[in-house]
């Protein structure tokens, strides 16, 4: 019922609105992925995890944890970063790109939960951490933070819905509690973004030493902020093309400067840590992990250097290319920690099954589709357009 309505509401509109489709076959691709995802969901439910994944006793976590959860949560970090920039640091000029970032984050977290329902052996017990506590478990902390933070994001997103339908009373309530909610959101994000790194502190003998370091929580946190900023640039670029809006270049250039500094900090910290642990020599060992590490690092170092250039920061395509590199570098890092960096230690070579890939692609496509739907129906960009003074 809902799906039918969503269908009739979204897709006929796409033709009538200005803006160009970047992907000509987007709609058929989307529905093929949805059908594929539904089919895998059916298999998963009735035949078990073994039928739809290449996971095994020695390799219990694969693509769904490595990409859907670790990358999903990280890519949604733009939400808390921009909320902090606008509401805590009071840099109001960034307000036009705040709502898209909150929407991305909210969708990101909801989709992480969807992916978890696929991955958990007993999805019907996803609520267990609420009542069964183990404060010594990083996973317990992450579960609580993700749950609370998803609620915070809902509160931060709901104003857009209230404005759309002209509900004044809830808006006033939300405004009254907004600052404590914002602060809570930033703290919760700090906790679980870093804790995703802490998850891997328990496997010192399994994770390849190019990635294993006691600093993982700190590194995960900084890289999440980096990719959060990069995602804001990525979104602005795509939504400007999609919705035929002008791109907020002065704002994005400002974000890009912050990104250059944060990335440099991250890279310096990683190299210093590797040096201090006596691991720099590993960079010369000819094995798969080394090449993957070099790929990951270059995807972060190249944009970090480029973004120091004024010309790059003020050119929309160059800025977009840099943000894309950071996003891919981040994804490479999370997959290296969770999959490729673990293979040697676990003694298994893991390649995801087509069913795993289908679910992951379906989740990503669903994210894009809901974002588009919400952006067309709710004041996500409008408020931005109004408050934005024309660029000279």
């Amino acid at each position: 019922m809902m799906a039918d309505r969503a269908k009739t509401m979204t897709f006929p509109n796409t033709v009538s609105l200005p803006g160009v489709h970047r992907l000509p076959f987007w709609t058929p691709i989307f529905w093929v992925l949805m059908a594929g995802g539904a089919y895998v969901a059916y298999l998963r439910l009735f035949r078990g995890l073994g039928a739809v994944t290449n996971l095994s006793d020695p390799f219990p976590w694969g693509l769904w944890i490595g990409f859907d959860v670790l990358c999903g949560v990280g890519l949604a970090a733009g939400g808390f970063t921009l909320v902090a920039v606008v509401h805590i640091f009071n840099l109001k000029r960034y307000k036009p790109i705040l709502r898209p970032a909150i929407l991305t984050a909210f969708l990101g977290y909801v989709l992480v939960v969807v992916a978890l329902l696929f991955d958990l052996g007993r999805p019907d017990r996803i609520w267990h951490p609420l009542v069964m506590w183990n404060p010594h478990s990083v996973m317990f902390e992450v579960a609580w933070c993700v749950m609370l933070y998803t609620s915070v994001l809902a509160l931060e997103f709901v104003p857009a819905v209230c404005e759309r339908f002209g509900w004044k009373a809830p808006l006033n309530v939300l405004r009254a509690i907004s600052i404590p909610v914002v602060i809570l959101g930033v703290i919760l994000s700090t906790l679980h973004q870093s804790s995703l790194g802490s998850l891997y502190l328990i496997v010192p003998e399994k994770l390849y030493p190019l990635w294993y370091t006691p600093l993982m929580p700190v590194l995960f946190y900084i890289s999440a902020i980096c990719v959060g900023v990069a995602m804001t640039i990525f979104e602005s670029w795509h939504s400007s093309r999609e919705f035929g809006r002008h791109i907020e270049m002065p704002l994005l250039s400002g974000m890009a400067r912050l990104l250059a500094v944060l990335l440099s900090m991250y890279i310096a910290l990683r190299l210093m840590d590797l040096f201090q642990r006596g691991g720099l020599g590993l960079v010369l060992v000819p094995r798969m992990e080394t090449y993957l590490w070099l790929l990951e690092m270059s995807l972060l170092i190249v944009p970090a250097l480029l973004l120091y250039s004024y010309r790059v920061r003020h050119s929309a395509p160059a800025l977009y290319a840099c943000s894309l590199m950071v996003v891919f570098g981040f994804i490479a890092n999370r997959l290296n920690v969770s999959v490729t960096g673990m293979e040697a230690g676990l003694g298994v070579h893991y390649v995801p099954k087509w069913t795993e890939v289908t679910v992951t692609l379906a989740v990503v496509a669903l994210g894009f589709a809901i974002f588009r739907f919400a952006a067309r129906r709710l004041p996500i960009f409008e408020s931005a357009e109004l408050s934005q003074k024309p660029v000279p």
Partner: protein
Amino acid sequence: MSQAILYDSTLCIGCRECEKACAARWKLPYNDKIAAEEKISAHKLTAIQTHGEHYSRRLCMHCNEPACASVCPVGALNKTALGPVVYDETKCIGCRYCMLACPFQVPTYEWSSRTPRVRKCDMCYDRRKAGLPTACAEACPTGATISGDREQLIAEAKRRVADKPDQYYNRIYGINEVGGTSVLFLSAVPFDQLGLKTRLPKEPLPQLTWGALSLVPDVVSAGGVLLGGIWWITHRREEVAAAERGEKEGKK
């Protein structure tokens, strides 16, 4: 009075009576095909392995400070005071973090089940509570596997090595590994030749996470004060600026 198991590889004849007794105790199927599988799995919680002319055994090591119990978000795994690490399948949500965290890669999963469980040896917790030996120890015809008090078993192992130094590799596996385990191994050859992990840290693995996790209250309180402070300053600055503008206009 922590309970433990001592497996002496030099006494093992590879008869697999321990496997059979274990399967019977867990009501799992056991036949020649399963006997030939030399690895533990959801349907085989202990396995005899052949390493050249030596035998080895795989089973849960029942760590003194188990990584699996520390990482479980719902506390489905617990180290009992008696020694065994036990699993409560009614709590488990199936995140499989225990399988990733276990330094011995012991917990296994019912991958093809609709309501899957983690499976692992529980050192016959019910039998040990009743003062009975473990099923595997009871079934072992040569005394290669015995169960008893951990300290006494360590003393016994030391005695065996001291009595016949030429027949034993001069170490007991499990005394120090990841902070000590409740399953101990004796062998004629270095332990890596039995397929045991020999490069494990000496300190318990849960300590590694606790270092980070114990900072959570500090992050919450310091973060709250810091963010609240920044918010107050940045907004106060704005208020002051607005008030000053107002004053100037008022004077005019």
